[in-house]
C-alpha cells in the first residue's frame, strides 16, 4: 500500500521584521521547518514531539493545507495539500487543540449539523457516525449545551467528534490533550486508540504529554529546530537514547553500596539498593547472579527508563 504521507525536504521559512531602532527594521528569515522527510504508512499512529517552537505545528499545518511550504514538497493521500485543499479537506480530520472549530454560542448538536453540510455527509451516514461518536466520547448529554458552557475536557471531546464526523482516513491532532484533566485525557486517548484499531484511521499527533505517546504511538518523530532528529519505534528510541536499566533489590540486611563489575550503585536506602547497568551489555539475570554471590536477595524489581527524563535531555541538548 502506498504511504499516506510522503514529504521531501519539506521546509518553511517565515520572514520576521525585527526592530533594530526607533524606525529602522531588519528583515530576518526564520527557518521554522527545514528539510523534513517523513513517510507514514496507512494505519500508523505517529507522535510528533519536540520543544515549543520546534516546528511540529508548522509541519502539521503544511500537511493539512493551511500553510504553503516554502521549500520541498509533501504528498498527503496522494494530493498536494494547498493545491488540492478542498479534495484533501474532505478526507482528513483536523483538531488544533488551541483553536476551536465549533460554534461558540450554539448547542454542540448545531455545530455537528453544520459540519455535516460542509462535508456533504448523507443524513443516514451522519446518524450512524454520530451515534458511534456519541457513545465513544460520551457526548449524549452535551448535545443540547452551548459550546461556551462546556468544560475544556467536554469541549475537546466535541472537537474530536467534529473532526471525525466525516470519517476521515487521516487525522491530524495538534496537542489534543493540552490542559485536560486526567479523566478527559483518558477519554481522548481511549477514543483515538479505538479509532485507529477499529477503523484503521491513520493518526498523527503532536503532544507535550509523553503519556499520550506511551499509550498510543508505536512510532515517535522527535523534531527540534525544524529538523527530524529521531524517527522510530518508541522502544527503539528509548533504547538508543538511554539503555540504562535499574535493578532495585531488597537485601537481607544493610550493605554498603555494592561494587559489581559493570554495575553502578546509584542509591542506598536501608537494605534497598538501586543498581544501574547498561541493558545492551548485561542482562538483569546476569547482574542478579553476580549479586547473589555476595548477598541474599529478598525481592527485586526492574525500573524502565523514564521517557520524560530522556526527552528532557534531548530538548536540553538541542
Amino acid at each position, binding site marked *: 500500500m502506498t504511504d499516506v504521507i510522503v514529504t521531501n525536504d519539506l521546509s518553511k521559512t517565515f520572514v520576521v521584521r525585527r526592530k533594530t531602532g526607533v524606525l529602522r527594521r531588519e528583515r530576518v528569515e526564520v527557518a521554522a521547518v527545514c528539510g523534513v522527510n517523513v513517510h507514514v504508512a496507512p494505519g500508523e499512529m505517529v507522535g510528533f514531539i519536540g520543544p515549543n517552537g520546534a516546528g511540529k505545528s508548522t509541519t502539521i499545518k503544511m500537511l493539512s493545507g*493551511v*500553510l504553503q511550504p516554502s521549500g520541498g514538497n509533501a504528498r498527503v493521500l496522494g494530493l498536494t495539500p*494547498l493545491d488540492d*485543499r478542498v479534495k484533501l479537506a474532505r478526507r482528513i480530520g*483536523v483538531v488544533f487543540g488551541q483553536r476551536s472549530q465549533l460554534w461558540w*454560542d450554539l448547542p454542540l448538536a448545531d455545530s455537528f449539523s453544520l459540519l455535516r*453540510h460542509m462535508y456533504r455527509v448523507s443524513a443516514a451516514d451522519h446518524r450512524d457516525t454520530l451515534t458511534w461518536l456519541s457513545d465513544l466520547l460520551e457526548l449524549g448529554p452535551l448535545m443540547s449545551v452551548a459550546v461556551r458552557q462546556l468544560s475544556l475536557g467536554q469541549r475537546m471531546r466535541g472537537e474530536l467528534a467534529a473532526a471525525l464526523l466525516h470519517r476521515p482516513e487521516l487525522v491530524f491532532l495538534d496537542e489534543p490533550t493540552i490542559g485536560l484533566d486526567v479523566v478527559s485525557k483518558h477519554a481522548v486517548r481511549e477514543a483515538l486508540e479505538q479509532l485507529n484499531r477499529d477503523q484503521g484511521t491513520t493518526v498523527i499527533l503532536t503532544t507535550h504529554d509523553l503519556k499520550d505517546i506511551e499509550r498510543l504511538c508505536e512510532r515517535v518523530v522527535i523534531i527540534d529546530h525544524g529538523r527530524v532528529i529521531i524517527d522510530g519505534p518508541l522502544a527503539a528510541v528509548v533504547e538508543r537514547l538511554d539503555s540504562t536499566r535499574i535493578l532495585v533489590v531488597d537485601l537481607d540486611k544493610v550493605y554498603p553500596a555494592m561494587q559489581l563489575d559493570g554495575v553502578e550503585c546509584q542509591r542506598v536506602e536501608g537494605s534497598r539498593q538501586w543498581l544501574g547497568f547498561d541493558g545492551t551489555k548485561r542482562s538483569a539475570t546476569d547482574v542478579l547472579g553476580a549479586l547473589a554471590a555476595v548477598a541474599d536477595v529478598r525481592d527485586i524489581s526492574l525500573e524502565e527508563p523514564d521517557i520524560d527524563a530522556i526527552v528532557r535531555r534531548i530538548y536540553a541538548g538541542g
Partner: protein
Amino acid sequence: MVEVVVSARLYRRLVGARIRSDFTYRASFFLRVLSAALVTASAYVAIAALISKVGTLGGWGRWPITFLYGMSSSAFRFADAFIGGSIERCSEQVRTGKFDKFLTRPVNVLVSVLGEDFAFRRVGQFIAVVPFAVVALSHLPIHWTLGRVLFIPFMFVGAVGTFSAIFVVSGCLAFWSPNTTEIANAFTYGGATVAEYPVHIMTNWVRVLAVSVVPVGFTVYLPSFVLFDAPNPLGVPLWVSLISPLAAIPFGLLARTVWRYALRHYRSTGS
C-alpha cells in the same frame, strides 16, 4: 452550477447559525443595531448643514447631493453588511490564527468566511440610509424614462460590487501585517466618505485616487450623470457614465486575485 447551489445553501445555513448566535444576547444585539443605525444616519446632518450654508457644491444643490449621499451610503452599507463586516472579522482571525479552521474545511474559503462571520448587525445601518436615496429621487427633477428607471438597480449593484472589492482588498492587508485595521478603514470608510461628494470639487490627485486605488468615483458619482440632464463638469462623456457600474467587474476580479494570493501567504500563528 450544482456547486453554486450547494455553496448558496451552505452560505444560508452559516448565516442562520450566525444570526442564532447573535440572538443569544438579544437585548444587547438590538441596542447595538439601533445605535449604529442612528450614528450612520446622523452623518447626513453634516452634509445638510453644509448645503444650507453654501447652497450648492460644485453646482450640485441639495437634492443631487442628498442623492449622492443616500445612494452611495446605501450601496456601501449593503456591501458592509454582506462583505465588509465578515472581512473585518476575518482579518481579526487571520491575526489570531483562528483563520486556520477555514482552510481545513472542504468549502470555498470566501463562502465560509462571508457566511460564518456575517455581520447581521450592519443591516440596520443599510436600512437607516436607504430613505435618503428614495426621498432625494422623488425630489430630483429627473425626466424619467424606462431606461433611467432600470439604470437605478444597475447602478446600485455596480456600486455594491465596487465597494465589496475595496473591502476584500483592504481586508487582505491583514495577511501580511498585523494591526492593519486602521489602514483598511482608511480605504473603506475613507473611500465611502469620498463617494458622498461630487468628484469634480476635489483636487486633481484625489480625483485620480477616486478612479484608481479607491475607485469610488465609479459607484454613484459617474453613473448619476445618466439620470441628470447636465453634462459632466470634468468633460467625462455620457457613455462612460453609462458603463461605469461595470467597473465592479474588473475590480471584483482583481479582488479575487488578491484574495487568492493572500491565502497562499497566510502565516497562521504558533500554537
